[in-house]
């Protein structure tokens, strides 16, 4: 089965440090209070490494990359 990568966020854990938006501005921006707004849809192949770096940098472990079955 084909899969794709998707960013998920635990909103309770997230404290709005904003590192994710610094490291992956192509997909993540912050709102007026510093909390991430993640663009919908899967992470394209060429951004996969940047996405992984953003996940690794999250100080509260709120951000995660999930591999899910590709939606048609």
């Amino acid at each position, binding site marked *: 089965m084909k899969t794709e990568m998707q960013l998920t966020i635990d*909103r309770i854990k997230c404290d709005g440090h904003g590192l994710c938006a610094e490291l992956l501005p192509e997909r993540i921006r912050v709102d007026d209070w510093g909390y991430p707004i993640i663009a919908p849809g899967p992470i394209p192949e060429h951004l996969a490494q940047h996405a992984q770096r953003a996940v690794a940098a999250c100080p509260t472990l709120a951000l995660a990359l999930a591999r899910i079955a590709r939606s048609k």
Partner: protein
Amino acid sequence: MSGLRVLAGPELTSGAESFADHTQRLGTPQSTGRALVETLVRSGLTGRGGASFPVGLKWRSVIAAKGSPVVIANGAEGEPQSHKDRLLMTTRPHLVLDGAFIAARTVHARQVVLYIGEEHKAGWSAMARALDERPEGERRIARIVGAPHRYVAGDSSAAVHLIDGGVATPTTTPPSTHERGLDGAPTLVQNVETLAHIALIARYGDAWYGSAGRRGAAGTVLITMAGGVNHPGVLEVEAGTTVEEAVAMAGGVTEPTSAVLIGGYFGAWVQAAKAWELPLDIASLQARGLSLGCGVVGLLPAARCGVCDTSRIMGYLATESSAQCGPCFFGLRALSDACSRIAERGANRDDLARLKKWAIEVPGRGACKHPDGAVMFLRSALSTFADEFAVHPAHWRQQPA
């Protein structure tokens, strides 16, 4: 006044129906097990706590999940305008208990928790007395736990969190409570009104359930009429009854009405002219982008200001955020502040633009649906009271609460 089905029986003013009277009037429910689950699926019954989740499907997934399930009867009723759950617990506690114990037998639950709003004193004591009247086998597995007087306490994950860990704040989903709830066990959280309907469907079946209802809708619903009606309070109406018919049942309007709040604080304002013909039925409302929610129908008299009332309710909802998720805690506070600036100091384009921007950014970004519900409510206000928001005078202090 008595109702059609779950509120049928002795006068509601005479208080809780005893177990003896209840059993004599209705007999003992027979149907449990797989057959009942399929009956519930066919009946189309949906949850009455606000989220309108199909009951039969929830039971199926609890049965399919691994582990020994728990049943939670949710009588938190944190919605300030809603009174149906406390009325039901106060007057027909055994119907609620029947539903809870039928659920327990059907999903093979080892415990039943009656989760009751701490402020609903009459409902609590009626339920406690009713539980004492039940057979030993039922009493042994059941206990009552108090729900704190907070808006989010009725969320199913908050209920599980309170019973498990003593804090009534929602937790991150997935997993949903019916997959992993109390002590990690699959947990069936069902609103007390839903349980009362289940108690009757287990006796009379899905065809009987569907024999009530107007305009293609099935069953009955409890609604709370609030605001500018002559007899505010709880009504049991056939699903599909229009707002206009329900208002007539509540003694008509006290004065001309400008808008109607359908579904409570997570619901939506609708202009009165468009509201009268709306059928009070989950599917018909959903088809119009509305929701029945917990069944509150609130009439706004034309003399009251929709902007000020919206601002007041947004202030309440911002305060009721459990302050766990930034977009909800900061977002709702900012939305509420912008509303009250318009209400207090008068319309201004900057705040209106902020409201519109944040109303798009905030929803969908909390662990629970609190920000989504609050913003849905606000967006309905921005469209229903568009003219008022654009030209609102600084008149907060002239409007009594």
